[in-house]
């Protein structure tokens, strides 16, 4: 095993605007919020649930009897949030509260803008602070305020809204989700990526079965042991299988048609995906010999992007039998 440096690590930020159909119960609830009203639903035991579940929590019967409730109520429990996180209703310290609205029998979770924990207590009377712009989303309730507090602070921008006909009820809500991670490559992957920055193609061999993997793996999928012996591979190999991309899609870098292929480097036991350019798409075939076309050295970094694409060498094709077991 080569002397190990710390694995490569980098921030990984992911985001997606989750778009969801609301259905008849939640649709009516968020539609009412857009009109600055709150509606609950009556459960099979007679209790009024706010927010409304679609099915009774006890009997699983569908619930359909809507009941208007007040935008004012009392705190059932609370917890102080001294350092708010991204996406929470307030960016200044606040209390999470379970609020039982007047006319409801269950409680709603939301934020209470109270300044400090000394200003919060169970049984406290609170009221809804509506968002300055309501769109039909739980965030139309910007937060709660002590019942006699003034609305002095503008509320945040509303979440994005799905397209809908003018005057149509809310049938879809959009909730943006953004998460931040610190992603780490494995020690084996880190060796490989650092090799690429030097223009080297480093694989590793499984100590049990002798297969050579590029990129090397944290564990051999046959034997379940980490790959260890380093193997430097040439930048020549063959196309094992391929497809011609004819369909344009968002973010595409090349103009179709072009070829995405599995490239099996000479001496490797696993193929990886790359581009085959430098000939007409219809000329690419299984067994075709190819060589890496490297980008200029000054553009190299710890990425397989250092190889712009593979192109035909003009050598005779490899016989099918020589690579059939790699398909």
């Amino acid at each position, binding site marked *: 095993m080569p002397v190990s440096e710390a*694995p490569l690590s980098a921030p990984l930020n*992911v985001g997606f605007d*989750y778009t*969801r159909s*609301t259905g008849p119960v*939640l649709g009516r609830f968020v539609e009412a919020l857009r009109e600055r009203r709150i509606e609950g639903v009556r459960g099979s035991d007679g*209790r009024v*649930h*706010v*927010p409304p*579940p679609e099915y009774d*929590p006890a009997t699983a019967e569908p619930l359909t009897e809507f009941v208007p409730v007040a935008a004012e109520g009392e705190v*059932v*429990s*609370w*917890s*102080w*949030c*001294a350092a708010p*996180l*991204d*996406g*929470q*209703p307030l960016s200044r310290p606040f209390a*999470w*509260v*379970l609020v*039982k609205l007047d006319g409801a029998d*269950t*409680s*709603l*979770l*939301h*934020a209470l803008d109270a300044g400090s*924990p000394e200003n919060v207590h*169970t049984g406290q009377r609170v009221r809804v602070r509506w968002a300055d712009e309501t769109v039909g989303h*739980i*965030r139309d309730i910007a937060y709660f305020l002590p019942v006699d507090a003034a609305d002095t602070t503008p509320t945040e921008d509303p*979440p994005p809204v799905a397209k809908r006909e003018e005057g149509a009820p809310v049938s879809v*809500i959009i*909730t943006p*989700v953004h*998460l*931040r*991670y*610190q*992603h*780490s490559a*494995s020690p084996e*992957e880190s060796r490989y990526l650092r090799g690429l920055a030097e223009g080297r193609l480093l694989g590793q061999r499984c100590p049990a079965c002798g297969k050579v993997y590029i990129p090397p*793996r*944290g*564990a*051999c*999928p*046959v*034997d*379940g*042991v*980490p790959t260890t012996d380093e193997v430097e591979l040439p930048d020549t190999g063959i196309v094992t299988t391929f497809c011609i991309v004819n369909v344009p899609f968002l973010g595409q870098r090349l103009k179709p048609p072009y070829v995405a292929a599995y490239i099996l480097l000479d001496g490797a036991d696993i193929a990886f995906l790359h581009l085959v350019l430098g000939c007409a798409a219809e000329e690419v075939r299984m067994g075709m010999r190819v060589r890496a076309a490297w980008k200029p050295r000054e553009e190299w970094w710890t990425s397989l992007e250092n190889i712009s694409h593979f192109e035909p060498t003009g050598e005779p094709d490899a016989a099918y039998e020589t690579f059939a077991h790699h398909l």
Partner: protein
Amino acid sequence: MPEVAVAGFAQAPNVRETAGTTNGVEMLVPILAEVFAATGLSKQDIGFWCSGSSDYLAGRAFSFIAAVDAIGAFPPIHESHVEMDAAWALYEAWLKIRTGEVDTALVYGFGKASAGQLRRVLALQLDPYVLAPLWPDSLSLAGLQARLGLEAGLWSEKDLAEVAARARADATDNPAAQLSGRVDVAELLDTPYVADPLRTHDIAPVTDGAAVLVLASAERARDLVDRPAILTGVEHRVDSPVLGARDLTRSPSTEAAARALDLDGVELAELHAPFTHQELILRRALGLNGDVRISPSGGALTGNPMFSAGLARIGEAAARIHRGEAGKTLAHATSGPVLQQNLLAVLEAR
């Protein structure tokens, strides 16, 4: 139907942060080797594989696929996955052996909770319409639950600190634990609130970890371990996801699961309680008498590797039987927010 036994257990150290990947391979490879060495099995002997983990911890779709390398998935194996604590993967494996389809199974769970911001990531397991868009963090939700019990007189802040102190003292015998040692209850009560009414000691530490457990039919297990831990009962239940409609000071799902089991004669119970007050809720729900030793490993408060802490509770309860330290034990696992889903397993030496 064949009875099922736990025949082997291993866990990775419960640490605040590993340098490894989110696919868990680095944590899993050594502990898989450990259970194979202890049971004399090899991967060819395993009839079924099942794991628990979460894409949201890794920040990638289908992240558990990469972990399959650690078990050696070629030639093809019979494998499954749950997006829950691996205790629920154990349930699936237990069923598979009960049906007679296989006579061995390997269950594993893993999670690198340190890669993201755990208390925020966990908001995404909540209702996606009325809760998750507010990003309520897991600590704050537990704080709401703890206060309900404090104000109802069910427990005091001192009771909570005593739970934490006992857990850390017990963990001094557990080399895998992240937190351990003697702490003074009065000193704990002098520390500041993190999510008022909860303090640092009330909250399980963010933990990276993994666990592996080998199941076998009772007949097969006798060849693998001297004192197999027979799973004489496994039950799991779920409570409503509507937080405001539940009595958060109780755990009806745990109570219902316990009613379906024979808990008479249980000597110790490994409880998966990531917050001090949740241990008190579980103890009441299980109706255990004062002689039953609670979480002698230190429990989740001394190391809570996401998606394997529940499986590890079953492993710890089984290991006491393997070592001849107990004849009948109980293990509990939880998944979801504020004890929403709960699984119980009774283990016995026979």
